[in-house]
């Protein structure tokens, strides 16, 4: 599957299928800090991501505190 990460923006190719929670653990990403968007649709972390899926792990953390 194709995995899009941001800040900095980059793409990874990872073999699927794989449960989203496992993908996050493999990439060492805290599930509190991202949304999982599979083929343009928001999905929960128990979703099975197929090998041909396009997955965006969109960060949700903003830095400004003012």
């Amino acid at each position, binding site marked *: 599957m194709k995995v899009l990460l*941001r*800040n900095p923006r980059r793409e990874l190719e990872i073999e699927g299928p794989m449960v989203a929670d496992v993908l996050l653990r493999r990439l060492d990403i*805290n*599930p*509190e*800090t*991202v*949304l999982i*968007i599979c083929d343009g*649709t*928001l*999905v*929960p*972390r*128990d979703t099975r991501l197929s090998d041909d899926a396009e997955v965006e792990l*969109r*960060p*949700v*953390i*903003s*830095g*400004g*505190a*003012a």
Partner: protein
Amino acid sequence: MKCRRCRQPAVIDLRRHNAAFCSDCFLHHCREQVRRAISEFSMFGPEDRILVAVSGGKDSLALWHLLRELGYSADGLYIGLGIGGYSEESEIRTRAFADDHGLTLRVISLPEDHGYDVETAAQRTRRAPCGACGLSKRHLFNRAALDGGYDVVATGHNLDDEAAVLLGNVLHWEPGYLGRQYPVLPATEGFARKVKPLVRLGEREMAAYCVLLGIEYQVEECPMAEGNRHLGYKEVLNDLEARSPGSKAAFLASFFSRGHEFFRDAAGGEQEALHGCVECGSPTTGEVCAFCALRARVVGDTPVTIGRKD
């Protein structure tokens, strides 16, 4: 996962609530959390005119949308900070949102209207950019609310933002800052009422709200914010949250319900000594307010001290 409310397939899981929601029920959850925050802290009523501080990011656009969904009268104010392509895209997102939803948007440009941008201010003041940015925004939002006859300024600070600020204030035991950290700050002479209706919702929820409604927000991080203290505090809190879901919400809610009262008196210490800034009339303890001092020093070239030290 199934939706907790309707048992349809879920689109998002919220470990803090030990629940998952489908799209419709998640949007209902967000509206309900904002409605409860407004009610719990007596933020404003249906007759009040609200000025929403919008940045083009997920929180402020979601807040604006939620307030309108709940039937409130809310206009937006965007402040262009002059942070290159980041600011340009943020303004495009904000204008598009306002146009798409038929909302009234006011726009102020720091470079065009006040002669400086955030990066220049940071360089001239030898401080982190977030200090100059926050000072400028707080002043201009307040000024715009008073001049425009708004009853209240609403900002998109969410549960994560406030928990991170609280952690910072506790780490430094800052009684004044702890006293002022509350979801509603009442209006005083020269200051509009300020509210934070997203205080019961985390930033993951706000991003999901935008994604589900197709709200196009600025996804990229502000390039000036990289490495700032609050990002570090959020990282610590999210590590804790991963081990113990609900920790962030409990930390913040407990402070509001049981801790804040002990610091309330420390918040108003300077109130009696305030008088009008000779430049703009805003309340200040000095001859000129912090914003006018900043602007004068940045547009000129004399270093100035602003905010608190790291």
